[in-house]
């Protein structure tokens, strides 16, 4: 419990520092949201200044940061200038969409990587391993952008899947089942593409971890006792191999908000990544800061999750001699 408390305090301090730095860095970037208005000859610069003052953008940086911080602690993350809504509500919806996509993709990737990696390690240098090796190498060399464009092309040509977005405009029935299937159909291509993008690294890591464990003395000793091969694989080798894999899983969780940026943009999935890019270009300050903070929370939480899982899974860390 003390351990958890300590980690949480570290996390909070870290998040505070991140908020400060992201605020500061954005401040240092030249210009702000209203610069595009200035370019419009019809609007006088006094009007622009007045609007700026309205949104509090003329106050000095420390004041703005302090105001933001106070608001954030109360749950108010500011106002989005580009979409005229509270930041909280805006990113809430977008984050949900992103998590749906990346969550599905991550689960799919791990569900595929584990058996493929284990099989490759168990039947090393044989057909399964070579085929998997070739496939992962091929996937690694293909850039993510190309992958998603290819999927988009596939959708356009075959018409089996929607070519973008999360829901069909035509669908306005509020029945759960129809909404569910609608979203599911939209989800297939981006999730599949994202899973494929994540797959090679995962497979390689699972395979490497398993190979290392399978060469350990205790595996041979277990064979010497007549324990069946499959049981050794899952009951002896996999638990020991899972240390690095748990760390990797924590990393997957930690980056869950940011991995899907390209997928969201190419396949028009209304997620956080796309919003982030738009907001940066529009200098929509509060949105950017809020997204950075949310991503940081995920990062910290992911690492903490990995550590807790490791604690639960590995008795050597949990107990001491």
């Amino acid at each position, binding site marked *: 419990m003390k351990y958890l408390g300590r980690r949480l305090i570290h996390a909070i301090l870290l998040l505070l520092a991140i908020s400060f730095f992201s605020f500061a860095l954005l401040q240092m970037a030249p210009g702000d949201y209203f610069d595009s208005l200035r370019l419009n000859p019809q609007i006088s610069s006094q009007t622009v200044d007045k609007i700026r003052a309205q949104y509090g953008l003329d106050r000095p940086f420390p004041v703005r940061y302090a105001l933001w911080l106070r608001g954030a602690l109360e749950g108010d993350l500011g106002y989005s200038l580009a979409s005229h809504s509270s930041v909280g509500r805006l990113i809430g919806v977008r984050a949900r969409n992103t998590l749906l996509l990346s969550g599905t993709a991550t689960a799919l990737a791990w569900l595929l990587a584990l058996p493929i990696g284990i099989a490759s390690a168990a039947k090393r240098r044989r057909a399964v391993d070579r085929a998997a090796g070739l496939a992962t190498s091929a996937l690694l060399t293909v850039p993510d952008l190309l992958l998603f464009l290819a999927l988009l092309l596939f959708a356009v040509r075959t018409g089996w899947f929607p070519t973008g977005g999360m829901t069909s405009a035509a669908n306005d029935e509020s029945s759960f089942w129809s909404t569910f299937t609608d979203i599911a159909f939209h989800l297939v291509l981006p999730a599949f593409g994202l899973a494929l993008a994540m797959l090679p690294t995962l497979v390689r890591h699972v395979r490497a971890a398993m190979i290392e464990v399978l060469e350990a003395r205790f595996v041979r000793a277990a*064979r010497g006792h007549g324990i069946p091969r499959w049981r050794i694989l899952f009951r002896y080798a996999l*638990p020991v191999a899972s240390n690095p894999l748990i760390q990797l899983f924590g990393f997957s969780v930690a980056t869950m908000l940011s991995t899907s940026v390209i997928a969201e943009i190419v396949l028009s999935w209304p997620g956080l990544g796309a919003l982030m890019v738009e907001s940066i270009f529009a200098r929509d300050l509060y949105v950017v800061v809020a997204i950075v903070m949310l991503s940081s929370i995920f990062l910290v939480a992911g690492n903490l999750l990995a550590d807790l899982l490791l604690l639960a899974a590995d008795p*050597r860390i949990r107990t001491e001699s």
Partner: protein
Amino acid sequence: MEALLKVDDLSISYRGRDGRETTAVGGVGFQVAPGETVGLMGESGCGKSSVALAILGLLEKERATVSGSVSYRGQNLVGMRERKLEKLRGAAISLIGQEPGISLCPVMRVGAQIAEVVHGHKKWSWEKCREEAHSILARVGLEPTHRIFAAYPHQLSGGQLQRVVLAQALVCGPALVIADEPTASLDARSQADFIALLGDLKQRLRMSLLLISHTPEIQASLADRLIMMRDGCVVEEGKFDRLYANPADPYTAAMLRRRPAIGDCEPAESERMAPQGVAR
């Protein structure tokens, strides 16, 4: 009396990464009778461990080529199907190795690992397998059994771990136990205790023991017969007492620390070291 284990013309060669084949063992043959303790001695690298692994078919097919015959109760183990070998390993012939710390799965409780061996061979319920594990732990002197059962390998000492490995090897009542340098990583006291335990158990359970060790004191404590190996071949064999009193080969004499006649063979050159240094 028919031999329990009959090794005949066993040869083992290893394939290196560059494709070259090195012969580790060339045409070794010996027998182990029921209830007998046969000691396998020789300097490191002479092929003793390879023989042990080859008997149980534990050498990887890609790296090692095994030829000859290893006959256990009439069945030839060389080239036997993996499924059939699995049935024999642990139940008919068991192997215990040198470093108990790394011979056990680090994330499983030691009692569970013993129960696994039982479960692998008998179609019993897990409950019964665990009971069996408790009783074997008591037999090897690891009390209180429930505390040892629940421990993880890193929580036990070297001597305790080696007893756990021994328990694993004995739990299904094998006829033959192969012990490959079982005390090499233990300190003096644990060594003595373990040898005593091994001697006691092999009497009571009437097992045969193939004891691989380069330490003459250990062979003297347990072995009935000795087989001397050097560079993958059998140099001499016979009853321990005969070899100790009348070694025919200088190598045997050296291995048993009997001062040979002024030495010719390399490792046999071992004059007693007089204390060195300036006299006080």
